[in-house]
């Protein structure tokens, strides 16, 4: 992986729709050959950012710029980019093979038959090749859409929620395909709501919240920032209530296991003895916060309230 080359380079771009700011002075840089995960709550600006990278939307006029695959022009649709939009866009009346052929030709691929056959076989769609799109299940249609995005061997693949609505088997098949794209040298940007997938797959995680960048980096570096402030415990005993223990900020109860977030100054040894006083401790694990946890910290209801108060002020300052 060559980190010095950025496939996508965004500097302080803003996009407003009427009164609403969808993306607010956003900057990011996607290294070549990486898998770059976009996370963020619904309506936070993920799709808008992806569309700007796709040049479907133009950012607001201003000092910002978007450089994709080394080009800054906003004129041409790019054959070197493959795009899977969030909502599936397939002509219902066309047959699978016809539609793949159409998209391949649009991307300028001339000898498309081997590629089409290869992908259909790989994603287990050979039997559906002559079916009309309207006869496909949702998962199958999504796979067809995926093929149409990657058929022309793009250098940059942008996938908006590629795993949503897929069963575990198809999720695995598609994940394998995405990893394979990277092995072949492609750079992959995808957005997801599934923190597990993002944690396992992404070299870089980028979180956008209310149009602003809140996280950007490798998973390790992000977890580093949030420190080792999480303890997973399991305690047997009647008088046990973790809320009452000093130094515990937040409790997430998973039933058998509780996840405790502790203040930075809390000594874990003291916490352990406090827990032992409550009952029999069967599990005690110091952990880094999961991406899920970090996500909730940033975008959960408490954070939402805080953000509603602070973000407009910051915007005014800017």
């Amino acid at each position, binding site marked *: 992986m060559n980190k010095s080359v950025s496939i996508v380079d965004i500097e302080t771009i803003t996009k407003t729709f009427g009164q609403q700011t969808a993306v607010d002075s956003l900057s990011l840089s996607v290294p070549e050959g990486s898998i770059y995960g976009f996370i963020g709550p619904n309506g936070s600006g993920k799709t808008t950012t992806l569309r700007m990278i796709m040049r479907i939307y133009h950012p607001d006029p201003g000092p910002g710029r978007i450089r994709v695959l080394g080009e800054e022009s906003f004129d041409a649709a790019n054959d070197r980019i493959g795009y899977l939009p969030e909502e599936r866009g397939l002509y219902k009346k066309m047959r699978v093979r016809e539609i793949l052929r159409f*998209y391949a030709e649009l991307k300028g691929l001339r000898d498309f038959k081997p590629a089409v056959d290869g992908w259909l076989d790989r994603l287990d769609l050979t039997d559906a090749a002559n079916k009309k799109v309207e006869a496909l299940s949702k998962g199958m249609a999504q796979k067809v859409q995926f093929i149409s995005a990657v058929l022309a061997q793009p250098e940059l693949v942008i996938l908006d929620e590629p795993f949503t609505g897929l069963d575990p088997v198809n999720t695995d098949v598609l994940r394998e395909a995405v990893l394979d794209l990277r092995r072949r040298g492609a750079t992959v940007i995808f957005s997801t709501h599934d923190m597990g997938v993002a944690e396992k797959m992404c070299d870089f995680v980028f979180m956008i919240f209310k149009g602003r960048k809140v996280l950007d980096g490798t998973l390790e570096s992000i977890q580093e920032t949030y420190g080792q402030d999480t303890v997973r415990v399991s305690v047997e005993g009647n008088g046990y209530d973790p809320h009452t223990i000093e130094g515990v900020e937040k409790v997430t109860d998973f039933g058998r296991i509780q996840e405790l977030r502790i203040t930075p100054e809390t000594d874990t040894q003291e916490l352990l003895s406090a827990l032992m006083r409550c009952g029999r401790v069967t599990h005690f694990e110091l952990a880094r916060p999961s991406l899920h946890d970090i996500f909730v910290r940033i975008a959960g209801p408490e954070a939402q309230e805080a953000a509603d108060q602070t973000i407009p002020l910051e915007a005014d300052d800017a």
Partner: protein
Amino acid sequence: MRKIIVVAVREYQAAVKTKAFIISILAMPVFMGGGIVVQTFMRDRVDTTDKKIAVLDQTGRLYDAVAEAARERNETGIFRGEGEDRKKIRPRFLIEQSEVTSDDPARTAFELSERVRNEQIFAFLIVGPDVVKPGDDPTRARVAYHSNTPTYDDFKNWAAGVLNRHTHQLRFQAVDLEPEVVQQATQRVPVANLGLVSLDEEGRITEAEESNEIANMLVPMGLMMLMFMVVMVAASPLMQSVVEEKMQRIAEVLLGSVTPFQLMLGKLLGIVGVSLTMATIYLVGAFFAIHQAGYGQFFPTHLVWWFVLFQAMAVLLYGSIFAAIGASVSDMKEAQNLMTPVMLVVIAPMFVWLNVVKEPLATSSVVMSLFPPATPMLMILRQAVPPGVPLWQPLLGVALVILTTMVCVFAAGRIFRVGILMQGKGANIGEMMRWVLRG
């Protein structure tokens, strides 16, 4: 350019390969031809049961003439074919003399009416007493035809002819005029509708050909209607397909590969292809049908290229407007609302075509046919009416239409670019104008 063609080919195939297209291609000749076939067929399939009609002749001088004319008609006038093929195609009129049954004329009429209601007779005729020599009271000088089937007018028309002929004769006799003399004196002067006299190749003056008024009317009208139909069938599905692409989010995928302008242009070229396919089918069909029918000289061969040119431009012009509408709405219902004003412009030539055909060279006709949205249909209409129009007019028309089409395609492209990705509420005219101006 290659991408535009890929889009155009898909659009063309999507339109032409549907059942709806094949049906609409077949529908027009079936409707038009079918109408003629059915009418020809039905002409001889009338009710031929005898019609019994009572005649109350208060003049006492006309009944015999009516009865005699009916007898003659029943023997010779209601058949078609000869010998064994002779076939009755009209009902016989069986005339029955009726008498005044009461002092009250209304009473007599009522009794006869009752007979009609009881189906003893089909209708009855009361010839007023002063018909031959009208006096002051017009009701006494008229013939009243009573029936309960007022739409069946064969007998009434036939009787009117017989009664008038005979009454005229009686009146001539009354003033000692020979009917033949009167007929000669009042004979109508025929006015022939001829073309111009010209020289043939050897310098001899040729006789002017008699104009065929029906052909002179039908050919321009046919061309205009054909263009209207082809434009509608080819261009209006474009709106539907744009709405589909927008609603199914196909546009988003497409715009990853083509620019909005390429996409729209590709779609426009696709439907121009569709329209040319239709026009070819119809023009070739019409050419053979007209030649087969022996009216080959009326086929407007010299206008075929103008037709194709104007039609392609009309499809581009209206197609770009339809595409812009499709891109700026969020569902078909909204699209229909925006379509209404456009449709009014499209069908406007239909309101004026008759005036234009009658006076193709009048200033108003020239001006209307140079109004770009109406040019394709009205110009071809004027060109098809002898003697045609000066060449500068269609050329100017083409130039103006090309200009308008370019403006429309450009404006539609801008509306398309913004609208195609807009979800939720559709745009209003003001917003669309803003998109056009701002880009």
